């Protein structure tokens, strides 16, 4: 299909136009058959109970035309950005330009993120949204270790988020421990729960693993709801202490940070502090994950995703490899949970429903499994984009779902579909997503 010389290219584009036209025509025909009864004829019960019907051929024509035009548009877009097997209509020079631009995305995004509190200092809404996005970026990066690198489908990730949040909330309210002591404790406790989940599911793969992790997420939530004496049940835990800057509280009082620095107190200080706190935690997750990928354990995770049998033949202990993946992912989930608790000041089981797990998993899948930048972009799209459509009221979900479907058509392996090698001799070539396996479990 691909044609290097100019003349065949023109010929094949002519051929492509005919092909696209034919394909769209077929879609329009199918739409006509379906919609002629669904939209073309409207039936209703009349005033005396008899059947009343009238035709709506105008609407029908509009719908069919919409399908025809839409499928031409989708096919053109597919050829613009589609998977590798589809002929590219974009010229090579534009493609190399795009590749260069792509390399600049990550540093630019990071610089912009660092500057967000400076640029939007007096816009509380944007800062709150930024904190929310960064929380999901961190959760996405944490889950990416389990799903993206080790290829283990985990539908109960929110359980570790909950363990982290409740660990901090209970340790801080009952024992008065500070955030900076509780943060590592929350991570360790979540990692322990990750290992506890890991043991029973080691032999499971694919759908079975997904079901058990889903159940695990629900069990944690139900235990939190029902263990009233410890967790407060559905009422949650309130009065969770706010984080301090190494012991200096961000309060208006005399010993607050503002008084010590000699500046006027503003509630925004705390928001900005929280913003940089979650940014730091997220970057720590990212740094550790990038480091781990280049260590034997990370390579073993990826090898496990590629072929578990071959791993065993090479003497890799698949049991501990899977457990470390679960524990590492859970630990980052626990950190994010502790942050969530300190930001909200109040937590209840309602914050840890399956929907959260699904959202984080969607971020990882949409971002391109295993890609750190992809996950960050996906979190921005999912959380930020969802807020963007707030003005559309009841159509918000519809527009959002439509956008997701379109994205999955263009980039079935996520926003960043290719894999970067962890070690190279001469040049690091990105590996096409067609070769990278998703894992069996």
């Amino acid at each position, binding site marked *: 299909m691909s044609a290097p010389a100019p003349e065949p290219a023109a010929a094949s584009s002519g051929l492509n136009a005919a092909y696209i036209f034919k394909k769209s025509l077929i879609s329009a025909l199918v739409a006509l058959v379906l919609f002629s009864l669904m939209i073309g004829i409207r039936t209703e019960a009349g005033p005396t109970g008899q059947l009343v019907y009238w035709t709506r051929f105008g609407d029908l024509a509009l719908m069919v035309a919409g399908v025809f035009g839409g499928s031409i548009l989708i096919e053109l877009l597919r050829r613009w950005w589609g998977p590798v097997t589809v002929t590219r209509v974009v010229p090579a020079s534009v493609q190399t330009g795009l590749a260069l631009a792509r390399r600049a995305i990550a540093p630019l995004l990071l610089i912009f993120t660092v500057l967000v509190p400076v640029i939007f200092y007096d816009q509380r809404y944007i800062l709150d949204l930024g904190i929310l996005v960064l929380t999901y970026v961190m959760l996405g990066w944490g889950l990416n270790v389990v799903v993206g690198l080790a290829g283990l489908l985990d539908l109960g990730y929110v359980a570790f988020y909950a363990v982290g949040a409740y660990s901090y909330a209970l340790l801080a309210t009952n024992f008065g421990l500070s955030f900076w002591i509780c943060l590592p404790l929350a991570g360790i406790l979540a990692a322990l729960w990750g290992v506890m989940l890991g043991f029973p599911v080691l032999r499971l793969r694919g759908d079975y693993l997904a079901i058990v992790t889903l159940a695990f997420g629900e069990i944690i939530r139900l235990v939190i709801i029902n263990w009233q004496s410890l967790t407060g049940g559905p009422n949650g835990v309130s009065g969770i202490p706010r984080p301090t800057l190494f012991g200096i509280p961000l309060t208006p009082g005399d010993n607050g940070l503002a008084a010590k620095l000699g500046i006027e107190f503003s509630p925004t200080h705390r928001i900005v502090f929280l913003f940089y706190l979650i940014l730091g935690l997220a970057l720590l997750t990212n740094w550790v994950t990038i480091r781990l990928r280049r260590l034997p354990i990370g390579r073993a995770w990826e090898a496990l995703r590629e072929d578990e049998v071959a791993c065993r*033949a090479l003497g890799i202990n698949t049991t501990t490899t899977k457990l470390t993946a679960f524990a590492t992912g859970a630990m980052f989930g626990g950190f994010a949970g502790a942050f969530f608790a300190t930001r909200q000041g109040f937590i209840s089981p309602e914050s840890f429903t399956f929907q959260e797990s699904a959202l984080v998993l969607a971020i990882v899948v949409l971002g391109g499994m295993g890609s750190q930048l992809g996950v960050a972009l996906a979190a921005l799209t999912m959380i930020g984009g969802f807020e963007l459509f707030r003005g559309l009221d009841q159509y918000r979900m519809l527009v959002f779902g439509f956008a997701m479907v379109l994205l999955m058509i263009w980039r079935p392996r996520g926003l960043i579909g290719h894999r970067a090698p962890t070690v190279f001799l001469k040049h690091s070539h990105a590996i096409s997503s067609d070769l*990278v396996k998703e894992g069996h479990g």
Partner: protein
Amino acid sequence: MSSDSILSVDRLTMRFGGIIAVNDLSFAAERRKITALIGPNGAGKTTVFNCITGFYRASSGTMRLTHDSGKQIQLERLNDFRISKQAKVARTFQNIRLFPGMTALENLMVAQHNALMLASGLTFLGLIGAPSWRSAENRAIDQARLWLDRIGLLERADDAAGNLPYGDQRRLEIARAMCTEPALLCLDEPAAGLNTRESAALSELLFSIRADHGASILLIEHDMSVVMQISDHVVVMDYGMKIAEGSPQDVRDDPKVIAAYLGADEQEAIAVMESGT
């Protein structure tokens, strides 16, 4: 049974329900020799391999591995990854099982997992970038580079393994197995799907592995020309049992082997065996 055998299989039996895949099989693989396990399709060769490499648990029988140091290991008592890690038995697969989404170099790095895991202080030293870890990593890369050079894939080190031509993938899988520094290398049909030139290169590679690394090789093979050319000892199986054993020359002339391979048509059998030399 020779006293200097690296692997001695004694009365190995493997049953799957009512089917007896391997029946009372005994043979030995000699140290620093190439032993071939041949037989018609369905004779149970791969099952023997799966028992030796711990993918199946043998129904009965013993498999004793003797390292150069004199240390003896009963393979039937170990399972899956421990066979490779502790007993130092590496294997390849009939249908190639590389990590297709990882580069050729990464494939060889994964093979050195256990050594690198120790060097990285179970990840903690590696995470802080300790100098001891860095030098261990560089040594591992050099080792991988050496093997890539030997199999002629140095130029393609940074290409995804799944993108390599079939013959290269076969050789890369052997190199990956060798990167685990095995005492016994088990190859499941290494010449399957290779052309004449590629199988000649394969024979050369196997000879050099035996000569330079002191590894003993046990291989399953259908390509008689490869078997006749490189093996020191041949074990012939049919219906799960050993029907003949000996030097390639002896086996080739054994009427039982000829009958097993080509049934009644002995004339054709002889023709195939002749072409093998």
